[in-house]
Protein backbone atom coordinates (compact mmCIF):
# COMPACT_ATOMS: atom_id res chain seq x y z
CA UNK A 1 0.00 0.00 0.00
CA UNK A 2 1.25 3.43 -0.90
CA UNK A 3 0.85 5.61 2.19
CA UNK A 4 1.47 8.85 0.30
CA UNK A 5 -1.35 8.18 -2.13
CA UNK A 6 -3.72 7.35 0.73
CA UNK A 7 -2.68 10.63 2.37
CA UNK A 8 -3.50 12.49 -0.87
CA UNK A 9 -7.01 11.04 -0.77
CA UNK A 10 -7.48 11.80 2.94
CA UNK A 11 -6.32 15.37 2.43
CA UNK A 12 -8.70 15.91 -0.47
CA UNK A 13 -11.70 14.37 1.30
CA UNK A 14 -11.15 16.37 4.49
CA UNK A 15 -10.64 19.64 2.59
CA UNK A 16 -13.78 18.95 0.60
CA UNK A 17 -15.85 18.05 3.68
CA UNK A 18 -14.69 20.98 5.80
CA UNK A 19 -15.68 23.43 3.09
CA UNK A 20 -19.24 22.22 3.41
CA UNK A 21 -20.08 24.75 6.09
CA UNK A 22 -23.67 23.70 6.51
CA UNK A 23 -22.68 20.11 7.22
CA UNK A 24 -20.11 21.29 9.74
CA UNK A 25 -22.56 23.51 11.59
CA UNK A 26 -25.23 20.84 11.76
CA UNK A 27 -22.60 18.45 13.12
CA UNK A 28 -21.56 20.87 15.85
CA UNK A 29 -25.12 21.62 16.83
CA UNK A 30 -25.86 17.89 16.83
CA UNK A 31 -22.99 17.22 19.19
CA UNK A 32 -24.36 19.78 21.65
CA UNK A 33 -27.65 17.92 22.09
CA UNK A 34 -26.30 15.00 24.12
CA UNK A 35 -24.31 16.97 26.71
CA UNK A 36 -27.09 19.50 27.18
CA UNK A 37 -29.70 16.77 27.60
CA UNK A 38 -27.63 14.90 30.21
CA UNK A 39 -26.99 18.09 32.15
CA UNK A 40 -30.58 19.18 31.99
CA UNK A 41 -31.87 15.84 33.25
CA UNK A 42 -29.37 15.65 36.09
CA UNK A 43 -30.11 19.21 37.13
CA UNK A 44 -33.83 18.60 37.21
CA UNK A 45 -33.39 15.52 39.42
CA UNK A 46 -31.25 17.62 41.76
CA UNK A 47 -33.92 20.27 41.79
CA UNK A 48 -36.65 17.77 42.66
CA UNK A 49 -34.44 16.47 45.42
CA UNK A 50 -34.08 19.96 46.90
CA UNK A 51 -37.75 20.72 46.30
CA UNK A 52 -39.08 17.70 48.20
CA UNK A 53 -37.46 18.71 51.46
CA UNK A 54 -38.72 22.28 51.58
CA UNK A 55 -42.35 22.59 50.56
CA UNK A 56 -44.67 25.51 50.27
CA UNK A 57 -48.31 24.58 50.94
CA UNK A 58 -51.02 26.90 49.64
CA UNK A 59 -54.03 26.32 51.89
CA UNK A 60 -57.56 27.44 51.09
CA UNK A 61 -59.85 27.84 54.14
CA UNK A 62 -57.18 28.11 56.82
CA UNK A 63 -59.70 29.42 59.35
CA UNK A 64 -61.72 26.19 59.04
CA UNK A 65 -58.93 24.16 60.67
CA UNK A 66 -56.54 26.43 62.51
CA UNK A 67 -55.07 23.52 64.54
CA UNK A 68 -54.22 21.47 61.46
CA UNK A 69 -52.68 24.49 59.75
CA UNK A 70 -50.62 25.32 62.84
CA UNK A 71 -49.44 21.72 63.09
CA UNK A 72 -48.43 21.66 59.43
CA UNK A 73 -46.61 24.97 59.82
CA UNK A 74 -44.60 23.55 62.68
CA UNK A 75 -43.19 20.70 60.59
CA UNK A 76 -39.64 21.22 59.32
CA UNK A 77 -39.27 22.93 55.94
CA UNK A 78 -42.98 23.63 55.58
CA UNK A 79 -44.25 27.06 54.71
CA UNK A 80 -47.98 27.79 54.74
CA UNK A 81 -49.31 30.40 52.31
CA UNK A 82 -52.80 31.56 51.35
CA UNK A 83 -54.33 29.39 48.68
CA UNK A 84 -55.50 30.69 45.29
CA UNK A 85 -59.15 31.56 44.62
CA UNK A 86 -59.54 28.72 42.11
CA UNK A 87 -57.29 25.85 43.31
CA UNK A 88 -58.01 23.49 40.43
CA UNK A 89 -57.28 26.11 37.82
CA UNK A 90 -54.06 27.12 39.57
CA UNK A 91 -52.81 23.53 39.60
CA UNK A 92 -53.97 22.80 36.08
CA UNK A 93 -52.14 25.86 34.84
CA UNK A 94 -49.12 24.92 36.94
CA UNK A 95 -49.18 28.11 38.95
CA UNK A 96 -49.10 25.87 42.02
CA UNK A 97 -47.75 22.33 42.40
CA UNK A 98 -50.58 21.48 44.78
CA UNK A 99 -53.24 23.13 46.93
CA UNK A 100 -54.77 21.96 50.21
CA UNK A 101 -58.47 22.85 50.46
CA UNK A 102 -60.18 22.71 53.88
CA UNK A 103 -63.99 22.83 53.48
CA UNK A 104 -66.32 24.87 55.79
CA UNK A 105 -67.81 21.83 57.53
CA UNK A 106 -64.37 20.51 58.50
CA UNK A 107 -64.62 21.81 62.08
CA UNK A 108 -68.13 20.43 62.57
CA UNK A 109 -67.22 16.93 61.33
CA UNK A 110 -63.95 17.02 63.23
CA UNK A 111 -65.68 17.88 66.50
CA UNK A 112 -68.24 15.09 66.00
CA UNK A 113 -65.35 12.67 65.33
CA UNK A 114 -66.58 11.65 61.93
CA UNK A 115 -63.94 11.68 59.12
CA UNK A 116 -63.45 15.29 58.17
CA UNK A 117 -62.56 15.68 54.52
CA UNK A 118 -59.75 17.79 53.13
CA UNK A 119 -58.98 18.08 49.44
CA UNK A 120 -55.49 17.67 48.10
CA UNK A 121 -55.48 19.19 44.62
CA UNK A 122 -52.60 18.00 42.47
CA UNK A 123 -51.73 16.98 38.94
CA UNK A 124 -50.39 13.43 38.66
CA UNK A 125 -49.25 14.13 35.13
CA UNK A 126 -46.72 16.57 36.50
CA UNK A 127 -44.00 14.23 37.68
CA UNK A 128 -41.81 17.00 39.01
CA UNK A 129 -44.29 17.91 41.78
CA UNK A 130 -44.95 14.30 42.89
CA UNK A 131 -42.32 14.32 45.63
CA UNK A 132 -43.93 17.39 47.22
CA UNK A 133 -47.45 15.96 46.97
CA UNK A 134 -46.22 12.74 48.52
CA UNK A 135 -44.69 14.64 51.43
CA UNK A 136 -47.89 16.61 52.11
CA UNK A 137 -49.95 13.42 51.96
CA UNK A 138 -47.66 11.76 54.50
CA UNK A 139 -47.91 14.79 56.79
CA UNK A 140 -51.71 14.66 56.61
CA UNK A 141 -51.73 10.95 57.33
CA UNK A 142 -49.46 11.48 60.32
CA UNK A 143 -51.75 14.22 61.66
CA UNK A 144 -54.73 11.95 61.16
CA UNK A 145 -53.02 9.10 63.02
CA UNK A 146 -51.93 11.35 65.89
CA UNK A 147 -55.44 12.75 66.41
CA UNK A 148 -56.91 9.24 66.14
CA UNK A 149 -54.53 7.95 68.80
CA UNK A 150 -55.41 10.84 71.10
CA UNK A 151 -59.13 10.09 70.69
CA UNK A 152 -58.55 6.46 71.61
CA UNK A 153 -56.49 7.42 74.63
CA UNK A 154 -59.30 9.73 75.79
CA UNK A 155 -61.69 6.77 75.55
CA UNK A 156 -59.29 4.57 77.49
CA UNK A 157 -58.20 2.40 74.57
CA UNK A 158 -54.60 1.73 73.72
CA UNK A 159 -53.85 3.14 70.24
CA UNK A 160 -51.68 0.11 69.46
CA UNK A 161 -54.83 -2.01 69.19
CA UNK A 162 -55.82 -0.38 65.90
CA UNK A 163 -52.37 -0.59 64.45
CA UNK A 164 -52.40 -4.18 63.27
CA UNK A 165 -49.38 -3.68 61.12
CA UNK A 166 -46.35 -1.61 61.64
CA UNK A 167 -44.93 -0.72 58.26
CA UNK A 168 -41.39 0.40 58.06
CA UNK A 169 -40.23 1.95 54.84
CA UNK A 170 -36.81 0.88 53.75
CA UNK A 171 -36.00 3.05 50.74
CA UNK A 172 -33.39 1.56 48.45
CA UNK A 173 -33.83 3.91 45.53
CA UNK A 174 -31.88 7.06 45.92
CA UNK A 175 -31.15 10.11 43.89
CA UNK A 176 -27.90 8.40 42.89
CA UNK A 177 -29.79 5.51 41.46
CA UNK A 178 -32.18 7.70 39.61
CA UNK A 179 -29.21 9.53 38.17
CA UNK A 180 -27.43 6.33 37.06
CA UNK A 181 -29.41 5.69 33.84
CA UNK A 182 -28.71 9.26 32.83
CA UNK A 183 -24.98 8.74 33.25
CA UNK A 184 -25.36 5.71 31.04
CA UNK A 185 -26.56 8.02 28.29
CA UNK A 186 -23.05 9.46 28.06
CA UNK A 187 -21.53 6.42 26.29
CA UNK A 188 -24.56 6.31 24.03
CA UNK A 189 -24.10 9.90 22.95
CA UNK A 190 -20.37 9.46 22.41
CA UNK A 191 -20.89 6.28 20.36
CA UNK A 192 -23.69 7.93 18.39
CA UNK A 193 -21.24 10.75 17.64
CA UNK A 194 -18.92 8.15 16.08
CA UNK A 195 -21.66 7.47 13.53
CA UNK A 196 -23.11 10.93 13.01
CA UNK A 197 -19.72 12.66 12.60
CA UNK A 198 -18.67 10.29 9.82
CA UNK A 199 -21.89 10.29 7.79
CA UNK A 200 -21.00 13.31 5.68
CA UNK A 201 -17.68 12.02 4.38
CA UNK A 202 -18.77 8.38 4.22
CA UNK A 203 -21.72 9.17 1.97
CA UNK A 204 -20.33 12.09 -0.01
CA UNK A 205 -17.11 10.28 -0.93
CA UNK A 206 -18.92 7.16 -2.15
CA UNK A 207 -22.54 7.56 -3.22
CA UNK A 208 -22.08 11.32 -3.67
CA UNK A 209 -19.10 10.74 -5.93
CA UNK A 210 -21.15 8.25 -7.93
CA UNK A 211 -24.07 10.66 -8.21
CA UNK A 212 -21.86 13.54 -9.40
CA UNK A 213 -20.17 11.28 -11.93
CA UNK A 214 -16.71 11.97 -10.56
CA UNK A 215 -16.07 8.39 -9.46
CA UNK A 216 -15.34 7.18 -12.97
CA UNK A 217 -12.61 9.80 -13.42
CA UNK A 218 -11.15 8.98 -10.02
CA UNK A 219 -10.95 5.27 -10.81
CA UNK A 220 -9.05 6.02 -14.04
CA UNK A 221 -5.99 6.88 -12.00
CA UNK A 222 -3.50 4.05 -11.59
CA UNK A 223 -4.30 3.56 -7.92
CA UNK A 224 -5.37 0.21 -6.44
CA UNK A 225 -9.06 0.36 -5.54
CA UNK A 226 -8.27 -0.78 -2.00
CA UNK A 227 -6.13 2.33 -1.47
CA UNK A 228 -8.98 4.54 -2.62
CA UNK A 229 -11.34 2.80 -0.20
CA UNK A 230 -8.83 3.03 2.66
CA UNK A 231 -8.37 6.75 1.96
CA UNK A 232 -12.09 7.41 2.05
CA UNK A 233 -12.56 5.27 5.14
CA UNK A 234 -9.71 6.98 7.02
CA UNK A 235 -11.09 10.43 6.15
CA UNK A 236 -14.44 9.46 7.62
CA UNK A 237 -12.65 7.90 10.62
CA UNK A 238 -10.78 11.14 11.35
CA UNK A 239 -14.05 13.05 11.25
CA UNK A 240 -15.63 10.40 13.48
CA UNK A 241 -12.82 10.56 16.06
CA UNK A 242 -13.04 14.35 16.06
CA UNK A 243 -16.78 14.28 16.66
CA UNK A 244 -16.43 11.79 19.52
CA UNK A 245 -13.73 13.86 21.19
CA UNK A 246 -15.77 17.05 20.90
CA UNK A 247 -18.84 15.33 22.34
CA UNK A 248 -16.87 13.90 25.25
CA UNK A 249 -15.26 17.25 26.05
CA UNK A 250 -18.66 18.95 25.91
CA UNK A 251 -20.14 16.31 28.22
CA UNK A 252 -17.32 16.87 30.69
CA UNK A 253 -17.83 20.63 30.58
CA UNK A 254 -21.60 20.28 30.85
CA UNK A 255 -21.28 18.04 33.91
CA UNK A 256 -19.59 20.97 35.68
CA UNK A 257 -23.02 22.60 35.66
CA UNK A 258 -24.64 19.76 37.62
CA UNK A 259 -24.96 20.35 41.40
CA UNK A 260 -23.82 16.89 42.42
CA UNK A 261 -23.99 17.71 46.16
CA UNK A 262 -27.78 18.01 45.80
CA UNK A 263 -27.90 14.57 44.25
CA UNK A 264 -25.86 13.26 47.15
CA UNK A 265 -23.26 11.99 44.73
CA UNK A 266 -19.57 12.43 44.94
CA UNK A 267 -18.99 12.46 41.22
CA UNK A 268 -15.67 13.42 39.80
CA UNK A 269 -14.95 13.13 36.14
CA UNK A 270 -11.22 13.51 36.21
CA UNK A 271 -9.21 14.14 33.04
CA UNK A 272 -7.59 10.72 33.45
CA UNK A 273 -11.00 9.11 33.52
CA UNK A 274 -12.03 11.05 30.45
CA UNK A 275 -8.88 9.96 28.68
CA UNK A 276 -9.58 6.34 29.53
CA UNK A 277 -13.17 6.69 28.34
CA UNK A 278 -12.03 8.23 25.07
CA UNK A 279 -9.49 5.47 24.55
CA UNK A 280 -12.18 2.88 25.15
CA UNK A 281 -14.70 4.25 22.69
CA UNK A 282 -12.22 5.47 20.06
CA UNK A 283 -12.08 2.13 18.17
CA UNK A 284 -15.67 2.94 17.22
CA UNK A 285 -14.23 5.74 15.07
CA UNK A 286 -12.79 3.04 12.84
CA UNK A 287 -15.78 0.71 12.87
CA UNK A 288 -18.62 3.19 12.35
CA UNK A 289 -17.13 4.67 9.12
CA UNK A 290 -16.23 1.19 7.86
CA UNK A 291 -19.87 0.14 8.13
CA UNK A 292 -21.03 3.42 6.64
CA UNK A 293 -18.64 3.46 3.68
CA UNK A 294 -19.62 -0.13 2.87
CA UNK A 295 -23.36 0.55 3.01
CA UNK A 296 -23.11 3.89 1.19
CA UNK A 297 -21.23 2.23 -1.67
CA UNK A 298 -24.39 0.37 -2.57
CA UNK A 299 -26.30 3.62 -2.97
CA UNK A 300 -26.41 5.49 -6.25
CA UNK A 301 -27.34 8.83 -4.78
CA UNK A 302 -26.37 10.85 -1.75
CA UNK A 303 -29.97 10.84 -0.61
CA UNK A 304 -30.28 7.07 -0.83
CA UNK A 305 -27.06 6.71 1.13
CA UNK A 306 -28.30 9.08 3.84
CA UNK A 307 -31.32 6.86 4.23
CA UNK A 308 -29.11 3.80 4.78
CA UNK A 309 -27.18 5.80 7.38
CA UNK A 310 -30.44 6.36 9.21
CA UNK A 311 -31.01 2.63 9.45
CA UNK A 312 -27.43 2.00 10.48
CA UNK A 313 -27.63 4.36 13.43
CA UNK A 314 -30.33 2.10 14.85
CA UNK A 315 -27.58 -0.43 15.62
CA UNK A 316 -26.10 1.43 18.62
CA UNK A 317 -29.58 2.55 19.63
CA UNK A 318 -30.80 -1.05 19.73
CA UNK A 319 -27.75 -1.94 21.80
CA UNK A 320 -28.72 0.49 24.51
CA UNK A 321 -32.40 -0.34 24.31
CA UNK A 322 -31.51 -3.99 24.83
CA UNK A 323 -29.66 -2.94 27.95
CA UNK A 324 -32.73 -1.07 29.22
CA UNK A 325 -35.16 -3.91 28.48
CA UNK A 326 -32.89 -6.69 29.82
CA UNK A 327 -30.77 -4.95 32.45
CA UNK A 328 -29.79 -8.30 33.96
CA UNK A 329 -28.26 -9.42 30.68
CA UNK A 330 -25.82 -6.51 30.73
CA UNK A 331 -22.43 -7.56 31.92
CA UNK A 332 -18.76 -8.15 31.24
CA UNK A 333 -19.58 -10.87 28.68
CA UNK A 334 -20.38 -8.06 26.26
CA UNK A 335 -16.80 -6.76 26.21
CA UNK A 336 -15.63 -8.75 23.15
CA UNK A 337 -18.66 -7.69 21.09
CA UNK A 338 -18.10 -4.50 19.09
CA UNK A 339 -20.35 -1.58 20.09
CA UNK A 340 -21.84 -3.49 23.06
CA UNK A 341 -18.34 -3.88 24.47
CA UNK A 342 -17.68 -0.16 24.23
CA UNK A 343 -20.99 0.52 25.97
CA UNK A 344 -20.22 -1.84 28.79
CA UNK A 345 -16.67 -0.61 29.34
CA UNK A 346 -17.63 3.06 29.09
CA UNK A 347 -20.43 2.53 31.60
CA UNK A 348 -17.97 0.87 33.98
CA UNK A 349 -15.52 3.75 33.63
CA UNK A 350 -18.21 6.34 34.29
CA UNK A 351 -19.28 4.32 37.32
CA UNK A 352 -15.76 4.76 38.67
CA UNK A 353 -14.58 1.23 37.92
CA UNK A 354 -11.46 0.38 35.98
CA UNK A 355 -12.08 -2.33 33.38
CA UNK A 356 -9.46 -5.03 33.05
CA UNK A 357 -6.82 -4.74 30.38
CA UNK A 358 -8.12 -7.99 28.92
CA UNK A 359 -11.67 -6.69 28.51
CA UNK A 360 -10.31 -3.47 27.09
CA UNK A 361 -8.05 -5.29 24.63
CA UNK A 362 -10.79 -7.71 23.55
CA UNK A 363 -13.22 -4.89 22.84
CA UNK A 364 -10.63 -2.96 20.83
CA UNK A 365 -9.42 -6.01 18.89
CA UNK A 366 -12.85 -7.29 17.92
CA UNK A 367 -13.81 -3.78 16.80
CA UNK A 368 -10.66 -3.42 14.69
CA UNK A 369 -11.28 -6.83 13.15
CA UNK A 370 -14.86 -6.03 12.19
CA UNK A 371 -13.79 -2.66 10.78
CA UNK A 372 -11.07 -4.34 8.71
CA UNK A 373 -13.58 -6.87 7.39
CA UNK A 374 -15.91 -4.15 6.17
CA UNK A 375 -13.10 -2.13 4.61
CA UNK A 376 -12.04 -5.26 2.76
CA UNK A 377 -15.62 -5.90 1.62
CA UNK A 378 -15.86 -2.31 0.37
CA UNK A 379 -12.59 -2.76 -1.51
CA UNK A 380 -14.07 -5.80 -3.22
CA UNK A 381 -17.17 -3.82 -4.07
CA UNK A 382 -15.00 -1.07 -5.59
CA UNK A 383 -13.24 -3.63 -7.78
CA UNK A 384 -16.51 -4.86 -9.25
CA UNK A 385 -17.76 -3.07 -12.32
CA UNK A 386 -21.29 -2.78 -10.97
CA UNK A 387 -19.99 0.32 -9.23
CA UNK A 388 -19.62 1.92 -12.68
CA UNK A 389 -22.35 0.31 -14.74
CA UNK A 390 -24.66 -0.77 -11.89
CA UNK A 391 -28.12 0.64 -12.08
Amino acid at each position, binding site marked *: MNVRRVAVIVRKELTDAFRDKRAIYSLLIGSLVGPLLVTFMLRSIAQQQRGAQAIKIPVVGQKNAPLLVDWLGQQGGVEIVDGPADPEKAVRERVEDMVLVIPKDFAEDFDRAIPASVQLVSDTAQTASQAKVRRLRLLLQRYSAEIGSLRLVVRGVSPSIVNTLSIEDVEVSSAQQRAAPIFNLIPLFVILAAFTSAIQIATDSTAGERER*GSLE*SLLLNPVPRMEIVIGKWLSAAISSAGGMTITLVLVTLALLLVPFEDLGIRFTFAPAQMGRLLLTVLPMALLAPALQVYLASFARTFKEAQQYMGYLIMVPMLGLMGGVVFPRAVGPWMAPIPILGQFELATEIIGGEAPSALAFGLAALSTFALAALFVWLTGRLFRSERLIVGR
Partner: protein
Amino acid sequence: MIRVEGVRKQFGSVTAVDNVSFTAADGCVTGLLGPNGAGKTTTLRMIYGLIQPGGGSIDVDGAEVTADPQTAQSRMGALPDVAGLYPRLTSREHIEYFGRLRGMPETTLQANLSHWADTLGMADILDRRVAGFSHGERARVAIARALVHRPRNVLLDEPTNGLDVIATRAIRDVIRRLRAEGHCVVFSSHIMQEVSALCDRIVVIAQGRVVAEGAPDELRAQTGHENLEDAFVALTGLERLDR
Protein backbone atom coordinates in the same frame (compact mmCIF):
# COMPACT_ATOMS: atom_id res chain seq x y z
CA MET B 1 -0.34 3.14 -29.49
CA ILE B 2 -3.50 1.32 -28.56
CA ARG B 3 -4.36 -2.07 -29.99
CA VAL B 4 -7.81 -3.50 -29.48
CA GLU B 5 -8.29 -7.09 -30.59
CA GLY B 6 -11.51 -9.06 -30.70
CA VAL B 7 -12.95 -7.39 -27.61
CA ARG B 8 -16.43 -8.37 -26.40
CA LYS B 9 -18.65 -7.36 -23.55
CA GLN B 10 -21.95 -8.68 -22.38
CA PHE B 11 -24.33 -7.18 -19.84
CA GLY B 12 -26.75 -9.94 -18.93
CA SER B 13 -28.27 -11.09 -22.18
CA VAL B 14 -27.36 -7.90 -24.04
CA THR B 15 -24.22 -7.92 -26.14
CA ALA B 16 -22.88 -4.38 -25.89
CA VAL B 17 -19.61 -4.95 -27.73
CA ASP B 18 -19.11 -7.82 -30.13
CA ASN B 19 -15.65 -8.60 -31.46
CA VAL B 20 -14.33 -5.07 -31.84
CA SER B 21 -10.81 -4.67 -33.20
CA PHE B 22 -8.89 -1.57 -34.25
CA THR B 23 -5.52 0.04 -33.85
CA ALA B 24 -4.93 3.66 -32.89
CA ALA B 25 -1.48 4.77 -33.95
CA ASP B 26 0.76 7.47 -32.46
CA GLY B 27 0.60 10.91 -34.07
CA CYS B 28 -2.83 10.07 -35.35
CA VAL B 29 -6.40 10.93 -34.30
CA THR B 30 -8.69 7.92 -34.34
CA GLY B 31 -12.40 8.58 -34.21
CA LEU B 32 -14.93 6.11 -32.87
CA LEU B 33 -18.06 7.02 -34.75
CA GLY B 34 -21.41 5.53 -34.05
CA PRO B 35 -24.97 6.26 -33.05
CA ASN B 36 -25.99 6.45 -29.41
CA GLY B 37 -25.88 3.05 -27.75
CA ALA B 38 -23.56 1.56 -30.37
CA GLY B 39 -21.00 0.48 -27.76
CA LYS B 40 -18.52 3.36 -28.01
CA THR B 41 -18.51 4.17 -24.28
CA THR B 42 -18.31 0.50 -23.30
CA THR B 43 -15.36 -0.01 -25.64
CA LEU B 44 -13.57 3.03 -24.22
CA ARG B 45 -14.29 1.93 -20.65
CA MET B 46 -12.67 -1.40 -21.39
CA ILE B 47 -9.62 0.39 -22.80
CA TYR B 48 -9.16 2.49 -19.73
CA GLY B 49 -9.54 -0.52 -17.48
CA LEU B 50 -12.79 0.44 -15.84
CA ILE B 51 -14.66 -2.68 -16.87
CA GLN B 52 -13.36 -6.12 -17.76
CA PRO B 53 -13.74 -7.30 -21.35
CA GLY B 54 -15.57 -10.59 -21.77
CA GLY B 55 -12.95 -11.64 -24.29
CA GLY B 56 -10.18 -10.34 -26.54
CA SER B 57 -7.22 -8.20 -25.56
CA ILE B 58 -6.30 -4.53 -25.25
CA ASP B 59 -2.74 -3.31 -25.32
CA VAL B 60 -1.61 0.21 -24.46
CA ASP B 61 2.03 0.83 -25.41
CA GLY B 62 2.84 -2.78 -24.59
CA ALA B 63 0.84 -3.01 -21.34
CA GLU B 64 -2.05 -5.45 -21.33
CA VAL B 65 -5.01 -3.71 -19.71
CA THR B 66 -6.63 -6.75 -18.08
CA ALA B 67 -3.35 -8.20 -16.85
CA ASP B 68 -1.78 -4.96 -15.64
CA PRO B 69 -4.40 -2.21 -15.49
CA GLN B 70 -2.24 0.15 -13.45
CA THR B 71 0.66 0.23 -15.88
CA ALA B 72 -1.77 0.67 -18.76
CA GLN B 73 -3.58 3.45 -16.87
CA SER B 74 -0.31 5.24 -16.16
CA ARG B 75 0.34 5.34 -19.90
CA MET B 76 -2.96 6.95 -20.78
CA GLY B 77 -5.19 9.81 -19.86
CA ALA B 78 -8.91 9.58 -20.31
CA LEU B 79 -11.86 11.90 -20.21
CA PRO B 80 -14.83 9.67 -19.55
CA ASP B 81 -18.38 10.03 -20.74
CA VAL B 82 -19.44 11.75 -17.51
CA ALA B 83 -16.61 13.67 -15.87
CA GLY B 84 -18.13 15.08 -12.70
CA LEU B 85 -16.18 17.56 -10.59
CA TYR B 86 -16.05 18.30 -6.86
CA PRO B 87 -18.05 21.52 -6.39
CA ARG B 88 -16.14 22.68 -3.32
CA LEU B 89 -12.66 22.32 -4.82
CA THR B 90 -10.92 24.83 -7.08
CA SER B 91 -9.75 24.01 -10.61
CA ARG B 92 -6.17 23.90 -9.35
CA GLU B 93 -7.08 21.47 -6.58
CA HIS B 94 -8.76 19.17 -9.08
CA ILE B 95 -5.66 19.04 -11.24
CA GLU B 96 -3.30 18.67 -8.28
CA TYR B 97 -5.41 15.90 -6.76
CA PHE B 98 -5.12 13.70 -9.82
CA GLY B 99 -1.46 14.62 -10.38
CA ARG B 100 -0.57 13.59 -6.84
CA LEU B 101 -2.62 10.40 -7.07
CA ARG B 102 -0.50 9.55 -10.09
CA GLY B 103 2.56 10.09 -7.94
CA MET B 104 3.93 12.95 -10.04
CA PRO B 105 6.88 14.90 -8.61
CA GLU B 106 5.70 18.33 -7.45
CA THR B 107 7.85 20.28 -9.96
CA THR B 108 6.54 18.28 -12.92
CA LEU B 109 3.01 18.64 -11.60
CA GLN B 110 3.27 22.42 -11.35
CA ALA B 111 4.89 22.68 -14.79
CA ASN B 112 2.14 20.56 -16.38
CA LEU B 113 -0.52 22.49 -14.49
CA SER B 114 0.62 25.78 -15.98
CA HIS B 115 0.98 24.12 -19.39
CA TRP B 116 -2.70 23.12 -19.35
CA ALA B 117 -3.83 26.39 -17.82
CA ASP B 118 -2.16 28.15 -20.77
CA THR B 119 -3.30 25.73 -23.43
CA LEU B 120 -6.91 25.67 -22.25
CA GLY B 121 -7.08 29.36 -21.26
CA MET B 122 -7.86 28.66 -17.61
CA ALA B 123 -5.86 31.42 -15.91
CA ASP B 124 -8.92 33.23 -14.57
CA ILE B 125 -10.69 30.12 -13.26
CA LEU B 126 -7.70 28.31 -11.78
CA ASP B 127 -8.27 29.35 -8.18
CA ARG B 128 -12.04 29.49 -8.20
CA ARG B 129 -14.22 26.75 -6.77
CA VAL B 130 -15.91 24.89 -9.59
CA ALA B 131 -19.45 25.23 -8.21
CA GLY B 132 -21.19 27.55 -10.63
CA PHE B 133 -18.79 26.95 -13.53
CA SER B 134 -20.22 26.96 -17.03
CA HIS B 135 -20.23 23.79 -19.13
CA GLY B 136 -17.20 25.00 -21.02
CA GLU B 137 -15.26 25.82 -17.86
CA ARG B 138 -16.09 22.42 -16.38
CA ALA B 139 -14.92 20.69 -19.54
CA ARG B 140 -11.57 22.52 -19.35
CA VAL B 141 -11.05 21.45 -15.74
CA ALA B 142 -11.98 17.87 -16.57
CA ILE B 143 -9.55 17.73 -19.50
CA ALA B 144 -6.67 19.34 -17.60
CA ARG B 145 -7.27 16.92 -14.72
CA ALA B 146 -7.39 13.89 -17.02
CA LEU B 147 -4.25 14.87 -18.92
CA VAL B 148 -2.24 16.35 -16.04
CA HIS B 149 0.53 13.76 -16.56
CA ARG B 150 0.67 14.57 -20.30
CA PRO B 151 0.12 10.96 -21.31
CA ARG B 152 1.23 9.43 -24.58
CA ASN B 153 -2.24 7.99 -25.18
CA VAL B 154 -5.32 10.16 -24.86
CA LEU B 155 -8.91 8.90 -24.83
CA LEU B 156 -11.81 11.32 -24.99
CA ASP B 157 -15.40 10.12 -24.75
CA GLU B 158 -17.62 12.62 -26.59
CA PRO B 159 -15.52 15.54 -25.31
CA THR B 160 -17.53 18.27 -27.02
CA ASN B 161 -20.94 17.02 -25.97
CA GLY B 162 -23.12 19.90 -24.88
CA LEU B 163 -20.43 22.55 -25.27
CA ASP B 164 -20.69 25.92 -26.96
CA VAL B 165 -18.67 26.90 -30.02
CA ILE B 166 -15.81 28.47 -28.09
CA ALA B 167 -15.27 25.53 -25.79
CA THR B 168 -15.65 23.07 -28.67
CA ARG B 169 -12.98 24.94 -30.60
CA ALA B 170 -10.63 24.93 -27.62
CA ILE B 171 -10.98 21.17 -27.35
CA ARG B 172 -10.48 20.63 -31.06
CA ASP B 173 -7.33 22.73 -30.84
CA VAL B 174 -6.08 20.56 -28.01
CA ILE B 175 -6.72 17.43 -30.08
CA ARG B 176 -4.80 18.87 -33.05
CA ARG B 177 -1.94 19.92 -30.81
CA LEU B 178 -1.72 16.48 -29.27
CA ARG B 179 -1.54 14.93 -32.73
CA ALA B 180 1.19 17.36 -33.78
CA GLU B 181 3.16 16.39 -30.68
CA GLY B 182 2.93 12.74 -31.70
CA HIS B 183 0.33 11.53 -29.19
CA CYS B 184 -2.11 8.76 -29.87
CA VAL B 185 -5.60 10.24 -29.62
CA VAL B 186 -8.84 8.27 -29.61
CA PHE B 187 -12.08 10.12 -29.35
CA SER B 188 -15.66 9.13 -29.75
CA SER B 189 -18.43 11.16 -31.25
CA HIS B 190 -21.69 10.89 -33.05
CA ILE B 191 -21.18 14.22 -34.77
CA MET B 192 -20.13 13.78 -38.39
CA GLN B 193 -18.59 17.20 -39.04
CA GLU B 194 -16.40 16.88 -36.01
CA VAL B 195 -15.13 13.45 -36.93
CA SER B 196 -14.44 14.35 -40.54
CA ALA B 197 -12.68 17.57 -39.55
CA LEU B 198 -10.39 15.99 -36.97
CA CYS B 199 -9.79 12.33 -37.64
CA ASP B 200 -7.10 10.62 -39.60
CA ARG B 201 -8.85 7.33 -39.20
CA ILE B 202 -12.47 6.54 -38.46
CA VAL B 203 -13.79 3.38 -36.85
CA VAL B 204 -17.53 3.14 -37.43
CA ILE B 205 -19.30 1.16 -34.71
CA ALA B 206 -22.92 0.07 -34.84
CA GLN B 207 -24.70 -2.40 -32.62
CA GLY B 208 -21.47 -3.33 -30.90
CA ARG B 209 -19.60 -4.21 -34.10
CA VAL B 210 -17.05 -2.45 -36.26
CA VAL B 211 -18.88 -1.95 -39.54
CA ALA B 212 -16.19 0.04 -41.35
CA GLU B 213 -12.72 1.40 -40.77
CA GLY B 214 -10.49 3.76 -42.71
CA ALA B 215 -9.60 7.33 -43.56
CA PRO B 216 -12.58 9.62 -44.23
CA ASP B 217 -11.91 9.47 -47.97
CA GLU B 218 -11.76 5.69 -47.95
CA LEU B 219 -15.13 5.53 -46.23
CA ARG B 220 -16.65 7.84 -48.82
CA ALA B 221 -15.24 5.71 -51.62
CA GLN B 222 -16.31 2.48 -49.95
CA THR B 223 -19.93 3.53 -49.71
CA GLY B 224 -20.13 5.60 -52.86
CA HIS B 225 -21.45 8.56 -50.91
CA GLU B 226 -19.70 11.90 -51.37
CA ASN B 227 -21.22 13.17 -48.13
CA LEU B 228 -19.78 11.53 -45.00
CA GLU B 229 -23.13 11.70 -43.29
CA ASP B 230 -24.73 9.67 -46.04
CA ALA B 231 -21.80 7.26 -45.85
CA PHE B 232 -22.34 6.93 -42.10
CA VAL B 233 -26.03 6.25 -42.45
CA ALA B 234 -25.38 3.67 -45.13
CA LEU B 235 -22.70 1.97 -43.00
CA THR B 236 -24.64 1.77 -39.79
CA GLY B 237 -27.83 0.68 -41.47
CA LEU B 238 -29.72 3.30 -39.51
CA GLU B 239 -31.87 4.15 -42.48
CA ARG B 240 -33.23 0.65 -42.58
CA LEU B 241 -34.24 0.92 -38.95
CA ASP B 242 -36.03 4.17 -39.66
CA ARG B 243 -38.18 2.71 -42.37
